[in-house]
């Protein structure tokens, strides 16, 4: 397994670690114990790849003994026409046995917009002083 295959997650994790170190230093912390991350199901990030890159990059940092907790957040859509707000509907393609998300409003059939589930953010940190 090479790092090149994980470039996308690698740069994300590198950002996460920079933010955590910055916050820890602001509070004179000696180590970071926990990083609580929220990853939208409709972001393009793979959870396994995030964890793999995390373990690689925390070495020799304030996060070296820390635990990465990831919450996988569901996506929501909003329909401007009928004001529907709810989970992103899934549709099945019987011919290929594929289940895929759709922006067709389940209530009125008009195009809807994604309002959540695309982001990746640090919800909180636990640090030790």
């Amino acid at each position, binding site marked *: 397994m090479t790092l090149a295959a994980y*470039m*996308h997650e690698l740069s994300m994790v590198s950002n996460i670690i920079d933010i955590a170190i910055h916050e820890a230093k602001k509070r004179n912390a000696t180590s970071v114990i926990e990083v609580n991350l929220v990853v939208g199901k409709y972001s393009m990030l793979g959870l396994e790849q995030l964890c793999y890159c995390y373990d690689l990059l925390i070495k020799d940092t304030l996060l070296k003994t820390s635990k990465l907790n990831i919450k996988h957040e569901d996506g929501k859509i909003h329909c401007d026409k009928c004001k529907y707000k709810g989970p992103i509907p899934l549709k099945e393609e019987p011919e290929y046995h594929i289940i895929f998300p759709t922006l*067709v409003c389940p209530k009125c059939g008009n195009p809807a917009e994604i309002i959540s589930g*695309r982001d990746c953010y640090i919800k909180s940190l636990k640090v030790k002083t």
Partner: protein
Amino acid sequence: MTKIVEHEEDEVFDIELEESILKKNEDFAKKNSELFKTNNIKTIDIMGSIGSGKTSLIEAMVKRLKEKHQIAVLNGDLTTTIDSDRVAKHGVDVIQINTGKECHLDANLISKALEDMELDQLDLIIIENVGNLICPGEFRLGAEQRLVVISVTEGPYMVLKHPFIFMEANVVVINKLDLAEAMNVEFEKLKADVMSINPKAEVIGTSCRNDKGIIYVIGALNLN
């Protein structure tokens, strides 16, 4: 009795952050978008799979639009200037952005490229993203419109396998229609797949090699 709370040696703090990891990119994208608006420049982020015909589409569009528009093309690739050399032959400004190992362009790279450009001389910027149907969808560049190119030679499942990027696009181009029969791939089925994921997208069939369908792409992007 008074209770005394003393500072302990190993005190543990919870820090609430809610800090977005993608925010850095979104900030740059917003900055780029404002710059485009101030200079009255239309911008299109062209994403798509490797070998689907992104450069061919740009060449065909540039040929038709260069008399009417002041165009610059930004070509994103891991390495080489093959794509930018192809586009430069048509006599428009071209900047190659080599990402090294990154699988997508990001708003910061675009913002760097913009520093060296005479924006007041331009009214259209076409950005060719790195060939990839996954990560580019995540990183908005600040472009006004996003177009995804796929081709029939990639087989019949390309759309349903990569729903996320099609959710991001306002125009989808299905290229190499001249090879559809040989590939046993139906344009109408691919179009229906796009529409079932993103009913707002405009889907256009092209054969860039034969210069077919290009005017409809130009129309869908409001570049007439």
